[in-house]
């Protein structure tokens, strides 16, 4: 159907064509962290809510799973994905109103956003575990 007319159309260049830069990295990271959270993050969220609604026994099972080494990796991963997606998302809000497109500014915030995401993740877990 659609293929007949579109098969021979030229494709836009994909990832391997471009020279890598921080703006490209932060864009890909935004998609990866967003889609990662859509599956793992929302899955854990529903498990958590379901376990709470199910009562102490089911919450016990959830707590056990989330305090295994794999559970911690998943939770740290989700929190890192959230803070990273949040920082690059805030960057998007600035770009949406037309700001931050100058080459130097764009490059700076492309580098700073994911770093802020990591710092926020470290701060969150430090407060949680050291309180």
């Amino acid at each position, binding site marked *: 159907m659609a293929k007949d007319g579109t098969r021979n159309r030229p494709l836009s260049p994909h990832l391997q064509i471009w020279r890598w830069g921080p703006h490209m990295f932060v864009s890909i990271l935004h998609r990866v962290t*967003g889609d990662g959270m859509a599956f793992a*993050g929302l899955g854990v969220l*529903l498990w958590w*809510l379901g376990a*709470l*609604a199910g009562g102490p026994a089911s*919450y016990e099972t959830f707590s056990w799973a989330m305090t295994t080494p794999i559970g911690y990796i998943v939770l740290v991963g989700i929190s890192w994905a959230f803070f990273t997606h949040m920082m690059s998302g805030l960057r998007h809000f600035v770009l*949406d109103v037309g700001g931050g497109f100058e080459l130097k500014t764009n490059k700076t915030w492309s580098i700073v956003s994911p770093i802020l995401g990591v710092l926020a993740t470290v701060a*969150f877990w430090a407060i949680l575990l050291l309180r």
Partner: protein
Amino acid sequence: MGNGTSIGRVRGLGSAKTGVHHWLLQRFTAIGNLLSVLFLAVSILLLPDLTYASVAEWMARPVPAVMMILLVVTTFWHARIGLQVLVEDYVHDHANKFACIAALNLAACGGIAFGAFCVIRLALGAH
């Protein structure tokens, strides 16, 4: 599509259609996510511990319960919109694309319904 005026030749061919609405919803739900998930993150840090008793007592309160329901709605909606873009970028066959987006809509609605039900059940004292 006509072949008369230049506007007549291109009208209806643009990618926009409902794109602006989609784009705006992604931003509105992003703001919702920012507020509700930060509320959850700060609440987790402020709870004395994360045992069943503490968390269940917290979530049964009116403001946390409402915030958690809003969180479920806004995050699933945002994810639905984001994953739709992913599908549109990588699934080119019309039938497969339709199936993916249909499944995505069902999963998102199911997630919202389940999450909201769990919070309401907890808040209205099932235990």
